[in-house]
């Protein structure tokens, strides 16, 4: 189901509109959490107020549990969610600069905007500083460029780097957050010298903490059985469809649609690229079986008005493609009966048996001989569908001044 915009459920042009609404919500939450006060923010460095740490850990845990369980339930497709790539040098240097700015100015970029909005003069000064920084960075960008893109690690995940499974990472992070909540409260109480009498009046957070612990422990032991999408069909349903044989398209129908250029009908060649480069039926598109769930084809398969007909040399690969597409919940998918072999058996090898007097057979036989004429006269299109293969030449250049030894 989600994410809505990449799935095409929400117009991409409304992207910024939703960003604006979420931005308002974010600002409101920051303000309500007390983040417009530099004193509160800096408290985390001096030990008298850890609210920043707690709010961010809470946000992290909320997003974490939400994403893992929504993914498990098939409500969100994590393959479509944008993940920030890691550039190590920019992350380290940026982090250090931000830390210094934070401890000196008492704000981070987001909170400075929030504080400026409610009229804090120090925050306005801070924002001026941000813009000076942006200007300088932009001006001297060429000098920084190598560092900026340095040590590119791609979209990596912390649990892969640590070599533990995602489930255990979720568990440890949640336990760490819970530990941090308790631990920071103890430090706070020590630094602020709180009365014991006051401690008893506090709200009890045992239940939510327990629930969080319960959920992440449950996640550890959840079976792998999961659906990738709510549209997914059950095996029994696919089996019933298979046995009804309604998923077959006869070669005659396919040929009729090809000749008449029908626009409600698409042939999908699921063979490998080599076979396709040698021959494929006219008007067919090529989707290798391995790539059937690739993102770029989703839109095509979701078009329920379109008849999508898989074919391979025989039926085996096409039936696999059909079964997988059916399981993914794509409607209106079919298999060309007999595949290419069956198609050529019918149109080019005179195997069609004509029962004298059967009107339908006579129509079919006339159609077959006409179609054969049509196919034989077909000319190769001017532009081949597939581009010519590109051979890569790798030239190794050794700079004169860098030769070693």
């Amino acid at each position: 189901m989600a994410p809505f915009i990449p799935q095409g459920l929400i117009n991409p042009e409304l992207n910024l509109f939703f960003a604006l609404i979420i931005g308002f919500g974010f600002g409101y939450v920051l303000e309500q959490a007390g983040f417009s006060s530099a004193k509160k923010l800096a408290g985390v460095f001096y030990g008298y107020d850890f609210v920043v740490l707690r709010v961010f850990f809470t946000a992290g845990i909320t997003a974490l549990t939400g994403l893992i369980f929504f993914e498990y339930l098939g409500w969100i497709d994590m393959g479509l969610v944008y993940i920030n790539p890691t550039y190590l040098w920019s992350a380290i240097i940026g982090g250090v600069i931000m830390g210094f700015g934070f401890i000196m100015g008492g704000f981070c970029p987001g909170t400075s905007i929030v504080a400026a909005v409610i009229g804090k003069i120090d925050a306005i000064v801070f924002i001026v500083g941000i813009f000076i920084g942006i200007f300088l960075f932009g001006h001297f960008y060429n000098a920084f460029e190598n560092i900026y893109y340095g040590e590119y690690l791609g979209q990596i995940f912390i649990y892969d780097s640590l070599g533990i499974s995602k489930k255990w990472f979720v568990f440890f992070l949640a336990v760490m957050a819970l530990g941090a909540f308790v631990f920071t409260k103890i430090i706070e109480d020590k630094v602020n010298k709180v009365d014991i009498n006051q401690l008893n009046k506090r709200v009890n957070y045992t239940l939510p903490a327990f629930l969080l612990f319960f959920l992440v422990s449950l996640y550890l032991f959840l079976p792998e059985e999961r659906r990738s999408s709510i549209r997914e069909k059950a095996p029994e349903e696919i089996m019933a469809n298979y046995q009804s044989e309604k998923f077959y398209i006869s070669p005659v129908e396919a040929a009729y649609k090809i000749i008449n250029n029908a626009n409600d009908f698409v042939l999908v060649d699921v063979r490998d690229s080599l076979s396709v480069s040698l021959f494929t039926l006219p008007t067919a598109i090529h989707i290798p079986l391995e790539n059937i769930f690739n993102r770029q084809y989703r839109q095509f398969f979701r078009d329920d008005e379109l008849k999508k007909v898989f074919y391979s040399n025989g039926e085996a690969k096409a039936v696999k493609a059909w079964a997988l597409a059916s399981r993914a919940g794509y409607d209106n998918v079919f298999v060309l009966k007999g595949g290419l072999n069956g198609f050529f058996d019918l149109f080019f090898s005179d195997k069609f048996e004509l029962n004298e007097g059967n009107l339908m057979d006579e129509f079919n036989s006339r159609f077959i001989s006409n179609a054969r004429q049509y196919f034989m006269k077909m000319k190769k299109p001017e532009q081949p569908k597939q581009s010519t293969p590109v051979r890569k030449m790798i030239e190794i250049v050794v700079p004169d001044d860098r030769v070693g030894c």
Partner: protein
Amino acid sequence: MIVKQLNNSVLLYFAVIILALGFQWFTAKNYKLSKNQVLTEITGKETKITFFELKHIFSEGRERDYLFVDIRSIEEYEINHINNALNIPLENIMQKRSRSLLSLEKPKIIVASTEAEAHFAQFLMVGIGIDNVFVLQGGFNKAFEYVIKEFKPAYGFYSEDKAKYDFPRFMNVAGESTKDAESIVPDIETLEITIEGGC
């Protein structure tokens, strides 16, 4: 007051997740593997047994190492079948009894009347969590004729999913045939790599 609301919203949030999990538990489909896992299982690995390999299995007496699963109907099975083959008609694959029969560690070879049907059965079995599933290429009838009765090496790699005709001879439509002079000369793209440092 605010703190109480916070506590309540936490409870609400967890309640939604727990309820949804419970809902899924009861409505869950019978798959063990996700669709992408199934895709990599059935396309990523070599899961076909050719007639050649079948012949080897028979001649080396390794039939016991494999479990032959005959998914044709009972009538077809009774006419002819591979020795010690287990008959589970396709429509019964999803039943609990068949699943427990198929949960053996041995590699399983699916025997069907057509290759497509065997691949379909493989798709179902892999999806419900049965591993080590292979498909007998070519179907039972051809296997009986060319392997069990008398081995014909010409059919050693027979497959229904191989092209029977030289398609471009009949329909000169798509792709480049090998005669196409232009396609023989590929575009050459040069990639320069600068190496640094010595020793």
